C-alpha cells in the first residue's frame, strides 16, 4: 500500500470519529492518576521521551524500577511538591474508534469547584471506588455533583481489585450499595467495572483474573458507549454571538447552535423582541448549508431586515424557551469571597450578560449527607438553591433539559472573579417567586417537568428510538389504511406504535373544533403535541392527516422535533382519489357543502422535501408499509430485523428519497 493511500484511509476513518469528553473523579489515593496513566500507556498514547522522563522520576522518588503510572498525569510544580493535583487538567488521547478528552479533576480540597468545571462539558464520568473501602462519603459527594451538572453517563470503576483477591462478592456488594444510594440521584446511565489500575486488569485489556466479569474493559466501554443523544436536537436555540456585516448587502448572525436543528426556510422568532422572519441562508466558509445542528458554528441570514444583536436568541416560532427575569437555580459557589446578598452580580448566560440580584437562598445542600440545610449565604464549594431576579430577561430552558441554555456563570463585579456556576431548575411560574420587581413576561410562561427516565432508557426498553411518521396527502390517498397497516406491522415486529388519525381525534380530543382554518390549525397543533408526548414516552407515532398546508406542517415538525419527524407524502392524483372515494366527501365538496376542502376549493401544498414519497395508485398498501419501514431502518429509528420468512424490503426505485423537511 502506498503511503498516500494509507493516510487517506486513516484520515477518512478519522473523519468518522467523534469525541468523547469524560471526567475522572474519586477520593485521593483511590488510584485515579494511576488509572489515567495506565489508560494512556496501555492504549499506546504516550511518547517515549515521556516514558523515559517518568522512569527517571519513578526511580528518584520511589527508588523503584517499575513505572509509576500516576506520574503521567501530574502537572504543575507546586502540585508536584505537595504531591497532589489541585486543578483540572486536560489530557488527550485517541484510539482508532474515538478521540478522548479527559478532564482530570482532583478529589481534594477544592473538589466541588473543580469537579463541576470538569463535569460541565463531560459526556461521561469515571468515578473510582477503592474496593477495600467501598462506597464512602466522598463517592456520594462526587455522584451528587455529577448528577447536578447533568453528566449523562457514569462508569463506576471499582479499583484495586488485586488487593481484595479479585473477588466477585466484594464487587457485587459495592455495586449493590451504590445502586441503593444512586436511586436518589438523577443519573441516567450507570455501569460498573471491576479493575486494577496498578496491574492493568480491565483497563484496556480484559482481565484474566476475573473470569466472573463478562463485560467490557473500561477502554472498550469508553470507545463504544452511545453519546449521540446527549445533544438536545428537539428545541432550536441559536444564541446570536455577533453580527457579521462586511458590506451593506450582507448581514449575518454568527453563533453556535446550542440545541435543535435549523433549516433553510424555517420560520423563526427572534427573542426577546418576538419578531418573526425566515432563515434565508446558512453561511459557512466551506459553503452554504441546508441545515445545521449542535455544536456547529454557523452564520445565519434572515429574509427580512431585523434589528438583532449579540445576546438575542433565534428559535422556532412554535417551540419557545422561557423568557423571564425571575428564575431559580442550583448554584455552586466557586469564589473565595462568600455570596453577598446586598450586591448585584454579572450573570453570563449563552451570549447574554446581565446584572442579577439574589433574592433568596432557599436552602443549602450538605453534600456529605445530601440533606437540606437552613439557608445562608453560600461560601466556597457550597451548593444551594437560589432565587434570582435579572435586570434584563433571559431566554432559558431547564438545565436538565438543555445544558446549553440552562447553565450560567456569575461574575463578581468588583474582582471579576467567576463567583459561581448555576443550573436553572424547573419550578413554579415567576408570579409565585418572592421577587421585588415584577416585569411583564413576553408570553405566558409555564413549567415543563422532567421525567426521571431518559430517552435512551426508553429506547433500550422498547428496542427502537421514538419517531413520528407524518402521512400527508389528499383525502382518499389511503393514508389511514397505510397508517393502520404500518401500526400492525410494527406491533408484530415488537415495536410500540400508535396511530393518530384525523377522524378519530375529531371524535375526542378535537371534538370542540370546527373546520375553519383556525380550527384545523389547532387540530393539528394538538396532534403534534400529542405525538411529541408519545415520542417522549418512547412510542413510534404514525399520524395520518390531510394537513394540506406546508407551513402548518413545518410548525408541526418543530413541535415534534425535526430529528424525529418524518414527513411521508402519499402522492395520488386528485382524479383517482375522487373516483375511488367511498365517503362521499368529494361529492359534497363539489356541491360546495364543504368549505376548505383540499384539492377542490382549497389548495393542497405538496411537501417540498419529504422523507419519502409514496406513489399511491402504483403501489399496494403493503408495499407502502415496507417502504416506510425501510426508511425507519435507514434512519436508525427501528433496527430490529424482520422475521426470516418475510419478503426482502423493496428498494424504493419508483419513489424519490429526499431529506425530511
Amino acid at each position: 500500500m502506498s503511503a498516500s493511500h494509507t493516510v487517506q484511509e486513516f484520515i477518512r476513518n478519522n473523519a468518522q470519529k467523534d469525541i468523547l469528553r469524560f471526567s475522572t473523579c474519586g477520593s485521593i489515593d483511590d488510584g485515579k492518576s494511576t488509572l489515567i496513566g495506565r489508560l494512556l500507556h496501555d492504549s499506546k498514547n504516550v511518547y517515549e521521551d515521556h516514558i523515559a522522563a517518568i522512569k527517571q522520576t519513578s526511580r528518584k522518588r520511589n527508588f523503584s524500577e517499575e513505572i509509576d503510572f500516576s506520574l503521567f498525569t501530574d502537572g504543575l510544580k507546586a502540585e508536584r511538591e505537595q504531591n497532589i493535583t489541585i486543578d483540572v487538567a486536560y489530557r488527550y488521547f485517541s484510539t482508532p474508534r474515538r478521540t478522548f478528552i479527559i478532564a482530570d479533576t482532583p478529589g481534594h480540597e477544592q473538589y466541588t469547584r473543580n469537579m463541576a468545571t470538569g463535569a460541565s462539558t463531560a459526556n461521561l464520568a469515571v468515578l473510582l471506588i477503592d474496593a477495600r473501602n467501598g462506597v464512602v462519603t466522598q463517592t456520594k459527594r462526587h455522584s451528587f455533583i455529577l448528577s447536578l451538572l447533568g453528566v449523562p453517563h457514569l462508569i463506576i470503576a471499582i479499583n484495586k481489585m488485586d488487593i481484595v483477591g479479585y473477588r466477585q462478592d466484594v464487587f457485587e456488594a459495592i455495586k449493590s450499595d451504590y445502586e441503593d444510594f444512586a436511586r436518589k440521584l438523577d443519573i441516567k446511565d450507570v455501569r460498573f467495572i471491576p479493575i486494577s489500575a496498578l496491574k492493568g486488569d480491565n483497563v484496556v485489556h480484559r482481565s484474566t483474573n476475573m473470569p466472573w466479569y463478562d463485560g467490557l474493559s473500561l477502554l472498550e466501554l469508553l470507545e463504544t458507549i452511545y453519546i449521540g443523544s446527549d445533544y438536545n436536537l428537539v428545541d432550536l436555540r441559536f444564541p446570536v454571538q455577533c453580527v457579521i456585516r462586511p458590506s451593506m448587502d450582507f448581514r449575518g448572525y454568527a453563533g453556535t447552535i446550542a440545541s435543535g436543528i435549523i433549516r433553510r426556510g424555517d420560520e423563526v422568532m427572534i427573542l426577546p423582541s418576538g419578531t418573526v422572519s425566515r432563515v434565508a441562508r446558512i453561511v459557512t466558509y466551506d459553503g452554504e448549508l441546508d441545515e445545521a445542528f449542535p455544536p456547529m458554528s454557523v452564520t445565519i441570514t434572515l429574509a427580512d431586515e431585523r434589528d438583532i444583536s449579540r445576546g438575542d436568541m433565534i428559535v422556532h416560532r412554535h417551540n419557545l424557551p422561557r423568557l423571564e427575569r425571575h428564575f431559580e437555580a442550583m448554584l455552586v459557589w466557586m469564589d473565595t469571597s462568600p455570596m453577598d446578598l446586598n450586591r448585584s452580580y454579572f450573570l453570563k448566560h449563552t451570549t447574554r450578560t446581565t446584572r442579577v440580584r439574589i433574592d433568596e437562598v432557599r436552602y443549602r445542600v450538605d453534600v456529605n449527607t445530601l440533606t437540606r440545610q437552613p439557608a445562608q449565604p453560600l461560601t466556597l464549594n457550597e451548593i444551594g438553591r437560589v432565587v434570582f431576579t435579572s435586570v434584563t430577561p433571559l431566554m432559558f430552558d431547564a438545565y436538565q433539559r438543555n445544558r446549553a441554555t440552562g447553565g450560567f456563570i456569575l461574575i463578581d463585579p468588583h474582582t471579576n472573579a467567576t463567583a459561581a456556576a448555576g443550573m436553572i431548575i424547573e419550578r413554579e411560574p415567576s408570579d409565585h417567586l418572592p421577587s421585588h420587581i415584577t416585569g411583564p413576561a413576553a408570553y405566558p410562561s409555564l413549567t415543563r417537568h422532567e421525567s426521571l427516565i431518559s430517552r435512551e432508557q426508553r429506547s433500550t426498553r422498547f428496542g427502537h428510538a421514538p419517531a413520528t411518521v407524518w402521512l400527508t396527502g389528499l383525502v382518499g390517498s389511503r393514508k389511514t389504511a397505510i397508517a393502520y397497516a404500518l401500526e400492525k406491522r410494527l406491533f408484530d415486529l415488537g415495536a410500540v406504535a400508535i396511530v393518530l388519525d384525523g377522524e378519530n381525534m375529531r371524535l375526542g380530543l378535537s371534538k370542540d373544533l370546527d373546520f375553519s382554518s383556525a380550527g384545523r390549525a389547532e387540530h393539528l397543533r394538538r396532534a403534534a403535541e400529542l405525538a411529541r408526548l408519545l415520542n417522549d414516552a418512547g412510542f413510534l407515532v404514525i399520524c395520518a392527516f390531510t394537513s394540506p398546508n406546508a407551513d402548518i406542517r413545518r410548525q408541526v415538525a418543530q413541535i415534534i422535533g425535526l430529528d424525529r419527524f418524518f414527513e411521508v407524502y402519499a402522492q395520488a392524483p386528485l382524479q383517482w382519489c375522487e373516483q375511488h372515494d367511498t365517503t362521499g366527501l368529494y361529492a359534497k365538496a363539489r356541491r360546495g357543502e364543504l368549505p376548505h376542502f383540499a384539492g377542490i376549493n382549497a389548495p393542497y401544498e405538496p411537501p417540498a422535501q419529504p422523507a419519502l414519497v409514496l406513489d399511491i395508485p402504483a403501489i399496494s398498501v403493503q408495499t407502502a408499509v415496507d417502504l416506510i419501514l425501510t426508511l425507519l431502518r435507514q434512519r436508525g429509528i427501528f433496527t430490529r430485523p424482520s422475521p426470516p420468512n418475510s419478503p426482502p424490503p423493496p428498494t424504493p426505485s419508483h419513489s424519490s428519497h429526499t431529506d425530511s423537511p
Partner: protein
Amino acid sequence: MKRYALSHLKQLEAESIHIFREVVAEFERPVMLFSVGKDSVCMLRLAQKAFYPGKLPFPLLHIDTGYKFPEMYEFRDRLAKELGLDLIVYRHELAGKLPHPIDCQKCVNTLKTQALLDALRKYKFDAAFGGARREEEKSRAKERVFSFRDQFGQWDPKNQRPELWNLYNTRINPGESIRVFPLSNWTELDIWQYIYLEQIPVVPLYFAKERDVVIRDGQILALVPPNSLLPGEQPRRMLTRFRTLGCVPCTGAVQSSASTVEEIIQEMMTARVSERATRMIDHNVEASMEIKKREGYF
C-alpha cells in the same frame, strides 16, 4: 442517528470558531499572535472561517527575535500579501543583536517574552490569541482557554478562573489582559490532519530535505546563521525536517524522510517522541515551561 453527529475535527473547529467570535464580541482590541508555524496557520484559517464572509476583525502580531529561519520570513510576508493581512511585526531593540553564541534562555526572556509584553502594552491590546495547545506540555494541560494575565502579563496557575461549559469570563480591569487559546483542545495530529484536509500552506521547513546540520548536545541544529560550527565540530548533510519552528539557534531538527503532509501524518501515526523534545529551551530546567509562563510567555 449518525446524521446529526459531527466528526471530532469538525467539533474542534466549531469550538475554536466559537472562541474567536466570543473574543471579538467582548473585547476592545484583540490581536492574534502569529508565529508563522503550523499552529499559527491553522489558527489563521479558523479565524477566517469565524468571520467569513467578513475580513479578520483584528491584526496579527509577529514577535520577531531576528533569529527566525529565512523560509519563515519569506512565508510570512508572502502570506500577509496574498491574504491582505494586517500584520504587525514587533522587534525588541536587541532583536538579532545578541552576543554569540546565542543564549537561548536570554533570547526567550528578552526577545520573546519581554518583547511580547512591550508590544501588547504599546498597542493596548486587551486580548491576544495564541496557538498553544494543552496537549503540548504538562503545565499547559491546566491552562484555561481564556487565561487571565495581570498588569505585568503574569499567569498565576493557582488562581485561575474556573471555566464551565462554553461560558467564558471575559471581564478585566484596564491594564489587565487575557490570553486566549482557540486550539486548546487540538492535538498535534489534529493540526496536521486539518492542514491536510483544508489544504493549508505551511512553511517548507516542516518537510524533509537534505540539510546542512551539526549535531550538538544530542540535538540536530541547522547550519543557518547565526548557527555556526564550534571548534572540533563536523558539518553533516542529513535528511531532516522540523517538527516545531522557533529561532534558528534553539530549534532542533528531526531525522525524517516525510516530505509531504501525508507522509508527516503517517510519521505521526507511529511517532515515538513528543514534539517538545526538539525545543532546547524546555530541556533546561524541570518544569521550565511553567516558569516561563508565569513570567508572561505564551
